[in-house]
């Protein structure tokens, strides 16, 4: 857990990117409890990403996407903005950790994450009486793979042949999306919501 604290620090700094006390000698980044919370969640997501990289995959790109469980929980509990922070910080810090920042792999993760978040922005408004994290997860998983295939087609492999791989990726998205959604639902049922300041309740003088 020692290593994860460094990342926690890094992410805290990235998220708490507003400065109040700027004199010539010291540069102080003030962070709120909410920053720390986002950082902690992003660090957990990062841990899951690392864990996942140890799982062998039959085909490059077919991954369970365990880190998205964290995104789903954050979305359900702290809203879309916090989910965006956690998801994008995880992509950024993960790319620094794996050494593929600004490499193709980074842009694949980024496009997948951005597409998922856009879809989640709509999916979160589905009536919660009928739709739970499993639905969110499935829609996000499809959006994720769609975003990635778009980048692959437009940039990396502009060949129609990649269409043959789409059914495999779509099946994986459906299966892993369902499983991740179930894990998130189960986790939220068993753990009560911790009392953490929410974004909406922050003072207005903090830029967002």
């Amino acid at each position, binding site marked *: 857990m020692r290593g994860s604290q460094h990342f926690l620090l890094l992410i805290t700094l990235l998220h708490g990117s507003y400065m109040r006390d700027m004199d010539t000698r010291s540069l102080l980044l003030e962070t709120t409890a909410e920053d720390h919370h986002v950082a902690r969640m992003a660090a957990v997501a990062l841990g899951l990403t690392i864990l996942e990289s140890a799982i062998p995959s039959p085909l490059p790109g077919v991954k369970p996407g365990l880190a998205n469980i964290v995104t789903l929980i954050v979305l359900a509990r702290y809203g879309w903005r916090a989910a965006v922070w956690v998801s994008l910080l995880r992509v950024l810090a993960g790319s620094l950790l794996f050494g593929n920042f600004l490499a193709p792999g980074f842009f694949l993760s980024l496009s997948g994450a951005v597409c998922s978040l856009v879809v989640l922005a709509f999916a979160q408004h*589905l*009536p919660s*009486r*009928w*739709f*739970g*994290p*499993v*639905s969110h997860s*499935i*829609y996000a998983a*499809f959006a994720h793979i769609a975003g990635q295939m778009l980048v692959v087609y437009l940039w990396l492999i502009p060949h129609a042949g990649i*269409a*043959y791989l*789409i*059914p495999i990726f*779509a*099946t994986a998205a*459906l299966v892993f*999306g*369902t499983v991740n*959604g*179930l894990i998130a*639902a*189960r986790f939220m*049922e068993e753990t009560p919501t911790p009392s953490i300041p929410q974004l909406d309740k922050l003072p207005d003088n903090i830029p967002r």
Partner: protein
Amino acid sequence: MYKQAMLHLKPGDWLTLMLGGIFVVLLTLKLWNGDLADKAIIRSGGKIFKEVALSRDQQIEVPGPLGTTIISIQNRKARIASDPSPRQYCVRQGWLQQAGEIALCLPNQVSVELAGSRKKYDSLNY
């Protein structure tokens, strides 16, 4: 575990799952419905040497400038079984099954192209 999974699935989640499943099945049918080939077009020296149906298993010997290329057809698939070309690219390409697939033995000027009910391309340039 199965029971618990059921508890977390709300009616809308079932709907999503079902729609997702249908989507994946349609996608697979659409994208993997490769036209199966009906016949093989064998060319030698740029001219059509023979057109054979894939329904009958057979071996065809095609003469070329370097020697004889042997094409074998089996189980609705075709391959170049042997060829005198030095690098053996067309032999190593293995079995052809989908319409539009092609194996070229350039040194011996022999090619096999599979064709289906409809042609995907008018011509291919390399």
